[in-house]
């Protein structure tokens, strides 16, 4: 059986196949340029909204369909 011979399950093989896209250097440069621009901007926001908190235990309320983006609380 393939699973045994490859030492991986089907999900792992599927995941590897789907991640097999070439990462474009130019796209990376654009992303890093955007990062620098944001970093150097004085207006960069640092206060987390609910959707930005992914610390363990910070799971949001859920279970009623789609989560909606909440406006940042108390933001001026």
């Amino acid at each position, binding site marked *: *059986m*393939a*699973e045994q*011979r*490859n030492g991986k*399950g*089907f*999900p*792992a*093989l*599927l*995941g590897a*196949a*789907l*991640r*097999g*896209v070439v*990462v*474009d250097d130019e*796209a*990376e440069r*654009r*992303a*890093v340029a*955007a*990062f*620098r*621009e*944001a*970093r150097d901007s004085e207006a*960069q*926001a*640092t*206060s*987390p*909204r609910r*959707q*930005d*908190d*992914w*610390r*363990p235990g*910070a*799971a*949001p309320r*859920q*279970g009623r*369909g*789609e*989560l909606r*983006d909440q406006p940042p609380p108390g933001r001026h």
Partner: protein
Amino acid sequence: MGQTGEPRRGHAHDGELGAAVARAQEGDDSAFAVAYRIVQPGLLGYLRGLVGDEAEDVASDAWLEIARDLGRFRGDGAGFRGWTATIARHRALDHLRRQRVRPRPATLEQDVLELPAPHSTHDQALESLSTEYALDLVRSLPREQAEAVLLRVVVGLDGPAAARVLGKRPGAVRTAAYRGLRRLARELGGDDGVTDAGPRTLEESDDSDTDGPEHG
């Protein structure tokens, strides 16, 4: 938790990713590039499942937002995968909404019709599972299953994180991922071979295999 071998928090690069994100939040652009390289393959795989050939453009939009809002993010490497997947998903859904307004010649349904014939044997299929073929298979699933499979298997999120990205209950996402993987494995012509995505869930809820896509 049992030894089910589920994808879960604890992805191979999560320690390195968390460290890179922390340094990027302190302003280190080379660390941001490291985080990009770790996350982008999975993110792109997810987006290709959602928007096909437009994935690179949608990913670019997502990264602009990720770069802009990085200061707001709180969490570790696994959390960063979830946060970025959520941003990418929102950009993909925006893209799909715009597409609906602007009719296009090629649609997801068209892709399904052109699904390649099943491989002759399961082994052969697994050995030669190309990215394109795998994407065609995943995109033939109901959207809910496709997204669950992509988030679990490609982005590398655990059940709760995938559920948070999708705004659904973890049990529902686990079931969707399991059914999707089982269906894909059958499509490839073998026994499902899907033993590690949550048989408990199957026992609990495998009353039918009708999975009405809820996104219209």
